[in-house]
């Protein structure tokens, strides 16, 4: 039942070229270490799904891993643009990138519908907005009771969802706390799920009776990667590296600078590089 494995093996076993992959985490708990491993293993032609692409998808897109992105807000929060995402959309570098764009509400509803095994989600959304003109996947249904017309989006059902969580117990159950984002929904909507965690504990101990826990049997692999969310954060372990987010703007702005950085910090590195970042941030508090 506990499917503990190395991050290398989890990615190698569960993510294939051409897969639809959701790496989720809403500001909190973004699975950056797993993203780097996907880049190192050279995956291609992925459809990347994520509400807020963030640095993790800027890196995957800049390294040519993706053919398409499904998203709802593609910026560096509080800083500015994701330059690699923009370069792919505006100039087709390193390859043409197809986009399917939604609102946050639509994406959150689409994951929710996926977790509930429904083919579509209904929302009061997109009224008077231009997105439905450019995204043919935004349609509508009529309420059988009131006659109202409501927006619909297709459920998101990734081949693989990847998330970072706080901790697992020895049986491989995984606990989340704090800003939960859409991670539970994204895991339950997917065919396969990989979770990286800060640590493994003997058991979760006394806890809230309704703690957000993903049972081991809903997961394909659990990998211990301390610091694996950096420069995002893990509540109670280390803070968001806001300085790193600001520094990324300059790194990603230039193609060559970006490639050089990726070579040093990703291609020639490994998951163990994340722990020191977390330790530094935890010590700074």
């Amino acid at each position: 039942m506990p499917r503990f494995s190395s991050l290398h093996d989890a990615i190698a076993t569960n993510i294939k070229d051409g897969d639809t992959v959701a790496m989720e985490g809403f500001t909190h708990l973004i699975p950056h270490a797993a993203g780097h491993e996907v880049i190192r293993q050279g995956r291609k032609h992925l459809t990347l799904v994520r509400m807020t692409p963030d640095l993790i998808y800027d890196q995957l897109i800049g390294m040519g891993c993706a053919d398409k992105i499904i998203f709802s807000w593609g910026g560096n929060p509080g800083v500015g643009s994701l330059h690699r995402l923009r370069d792919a959309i505006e100039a087709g570098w390193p390859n043409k990138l197809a986009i399917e764009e939604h609102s946050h509400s639509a994406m959150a509803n689409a994951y929710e519908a996926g977790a509930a095994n429904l083919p579509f989600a209904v929302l009061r959304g997109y009224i008077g907005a231009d997105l439905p003109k450019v995204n043919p996947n935004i349609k509508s249904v009529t309420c059988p009771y009131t006659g109202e017309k409501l927006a619909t989006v297709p459920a998101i059902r990734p081949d693989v969802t990847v998330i970072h969580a706080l901790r697992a117990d020895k049986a491989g159950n995984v606990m989340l706390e704090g800003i939960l984002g859409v991670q539970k929904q994204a895991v339950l909507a997917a065919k396969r799920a990989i979770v990286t965690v800060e640590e493994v504990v003997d058991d979760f101990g006394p806890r809230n009776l309704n703690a957000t826990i993903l049972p081991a049997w809903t997961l394909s692999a659990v990998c211990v990667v301390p610091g694996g969310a950096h420069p995002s954060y893990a509540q109670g372990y280390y803070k968001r590296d806001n300085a790193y987010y600001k520094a990324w703007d300059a790194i990603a702005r230039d193609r060559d600078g970006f490639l050089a950085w990726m070579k040093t910090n990703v291609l020639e590195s490994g998951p163990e590089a994340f722990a020191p970042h977390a330790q530094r941030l935890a010590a700074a508090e």
Partner: protein
Amino acid sequence: MAEYTSNEMMTIAAARALRNEDVCFVGIGAPSAASNLARLTHAPDITLIYESGTIATKPTVLPLSIGDGELCDTALTTVAVPEMFRYWLQGGRVTVGFLGGAQIDKYANLNTTVVGPYDKPKVRLPGGGGAPEIATNCGEIFIIMSQGKRSFVDKLDFITSLGFGEGGDHRERLGVKTKGPTKLVTDLCVFEPDATTKEMTVVTIHPGVTREQIDANTGWKVRYADKVGETPAPTAKELEELRALHARTAKAHGDQA
């Protein structure tokens, strides 16, 4: 009276629009500064909600992102993002949505998606995020934006979120029951929609700002209310709280560098 910047005037004027009993869905950046300033001054019980799921949060420093740990640490509770958008925003539980934008038109429609054609953008902006549904599901909308000819435009390249559409009763015709943008606060003045046409209309001008400055920084012919007042200058207390908030924020973000 104390010296202050036009940006401080903008944030303070926006903060004043919020009431103690409001439930405010807060956008990141300028809306976040204004909302927290309101909480730290005249609206101590205001409920601030961020789309990351944090409800009734009371951050000591401004978050850089919409989901900094500070927001969760100081919240009454934090819900998952689907619940935030379904039960709280779409559920009609939010009285004010506080938005910024890259481009705005005279009916307070906003663009944060693209400059140029969607399929061949000149500048690809981040996109809508929560805005399309914030714009129609909150009781009313406050907008905060610095004025300039490139941001206050005659025609948007893309409508990311609905203001008053083509004006008049356009919102009603689309079946939207909420008020829409009732206030647009800039670094120069405050706009409110005309009761009938819904065109955003200058109601107060910040101290020392001229109509010529406003006209020169707006991409459409600006309409002024019959009686245009002067925005009250920042009080010492407002400036003190705002500057202390920014100083705490800079220190907190700098500490991590």
